[in-house]
């Protein structure tokens, strides 16, 4: 198989724990990620699943280098980007993009949609033909051209998330981090956004890390799934293997806890003692 886009070895991240910050002095560090090893194959979608406190969002933010790892290596196309400075990262930014969970908070209320999508283009030296490029980005996510002049508050939740996708893909990046991008949306919109991402990932040959707390939305989208718990990888499997034949008890518990939309009188019965 070809060389993976991302190759992560022994990744650790520790962040200051503000809840335990003493009155004077620094907050003690809390270990969020406790040594992760995995690869993200080129052109594939990997699901990263876990409950709150599992460290899945921290992992995503380390991949796009919004935070710096405390140990271990994050190699992107063969180069360790784990400890690059902000200035050294800048040329890499156009290939490391991100779609945010909450499109409300990820779109600046004072900028037009045009300016929001144009920002990464301008900053990466693609200012000529800006209008066409933004138009193309809007079209790609199925938004009408006249949305360019609108503001965030004039859009619905699903439309906002489309803008978030358009912004992330405007630069035709190699990697996109999708951080819980449907968790704030209604089911009908959720399905639209997932279908859109699925389509664009194939069309543009994207490598995607799809973070979700909900195993049920990722089966169709992902080639492999990483299940996380308390800063560690519990299970890493090909998607169908994980769903049809989960190896770990924790994965099985997660699957069993999903309320499927079908009648099952036994679902709420307490587990029979083993």
């Amino acid at each position: 198989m070809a060389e993976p886009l991302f190759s992560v070895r022994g990744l650790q991240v520790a962040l200051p724990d503000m809840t335990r910050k003493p009155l004077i002095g620094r907050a003690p560090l809390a270990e969020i990620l406790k040594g992760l090893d995995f690869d993200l194959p080129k052109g594939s979608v990997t699901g990263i699943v876990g409950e709150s406190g599992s460290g899945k969002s921290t992992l995503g933010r380390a991949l796009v280098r919004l935070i710096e790892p405390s140990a271990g290596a994050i190699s992107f196309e063969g180069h360790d980007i784990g400890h690059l400075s902000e200035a050294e990262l800048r040329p890499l930014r156009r290939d490391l993009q991100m779609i945010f969970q909450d499109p409300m908070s990820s779109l600046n209320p004072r900028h037009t949609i045009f300016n929001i999508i144009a920002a990464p283009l301008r900053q990466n030296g693609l200012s000529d033909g800006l209008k066409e490029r933004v138009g193309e980005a809007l079209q790609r996510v199925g938004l009408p051209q006249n949305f360019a002049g609108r503001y965030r508050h004039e859009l619905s939740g699903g439309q906002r998330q489309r803008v978030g996708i358009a912004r992330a893909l405007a630069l035709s990046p190699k990697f996109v981090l999708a951080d819980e991008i449907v968790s704030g949306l209604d089911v009908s919109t959720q399905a639209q956004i997932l279908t859109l991402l699925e389509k664009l990932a194939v069309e543009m040959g994207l490598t995607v890390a799809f973070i979700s707390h909900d195993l049920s939305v990722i089966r169709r989208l992902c080639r492999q799934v990483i299940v996380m718990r308390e800063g560690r990888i519990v299970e890493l499997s090909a998607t169908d293997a994980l769903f049809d034949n989960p190896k770990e008890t924790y994965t099985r518990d997660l699957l069993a806890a999903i309320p499927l939309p079908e009648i099952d009188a036994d679902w709420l019965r307490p587990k029979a003692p083993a």
Partner: protein
Amino acid sequence: MSATAKPCLEIRSLSAVLANGQRVLRSVSLAVQPGEVRALVGESGAGKTMIGKAVLGVLPKSVRIVEGEMIIEGEDLGRLDAKARRTLIGARTALIPQDPLTALNPSRRIGPQMTDRLVRILGWSGDRADSRIRQLLDEVQIRDPERVLKSYPHELSGGMRQRVLIAAAFAAEPRLIVADEPTTALDVTVQKQILRLIAELQRDHGTAILFVTHDLGVVAKISQKVSVLYAGKVVEEAATVDLFASPQHPYTRALMLATPRYTDPYASLKPVDETVLAGLAAEIAAADQAWRPSHG
């Protein structure tokens, strides 16, 4: 349940408007029989939370009820004066809220917050309230009630806080509980435990529940009856078993196909069809055309 039993809650043709005249509830009718769980399911803007708030008499000031009746165990809320209405709602109903953190006062300990309602509103003695709360904490499987009662809300986990609120809701033996998306903020494994608890307590206490949710999966597991809402209108209502066996309304069918099912990935997560939405828009428009508020 015999057909002649008085419904625990009956809503007849309830309509509400915003200050600008826009309709947010469109002649909603539904009934909750004693001891039954009725799910109110819909997407954002469907008005499901608003119905719960209307029943509890806590609608925001911007929403005005213009038509309809709400009857709790035979008593028409509209015929009571404000004080009698509050007393009735206080004695017969309770709420399990969506966000257990904002529903609790962060600067007070759990214990007094739980007993307050029993003592102040129902006039119980402090001792009676206290022992009742301990009994309920035991029922929601809180192992160390002493610690929990002495804790501040932020010292408990999300699941633990929700247990506390469930205990508080059942403590006064209400006839009807409004559960407003009580598991939406929780992790799936915790959600399952909490749903199981609610189901158990509901059965043991024979309480009726109006269960507001956006998740058809939760509907399937917890409810016996269900009303599907869209834009403040009940588009379909049925016994839960029947709804899942043969959904009648196109919107219900679309919603079911949109809901993710990992067991069948290619038959789920289907975007809602444009024609379904157009049909809904037409249905809403026709309903609004025919509707005249009785006193307007």
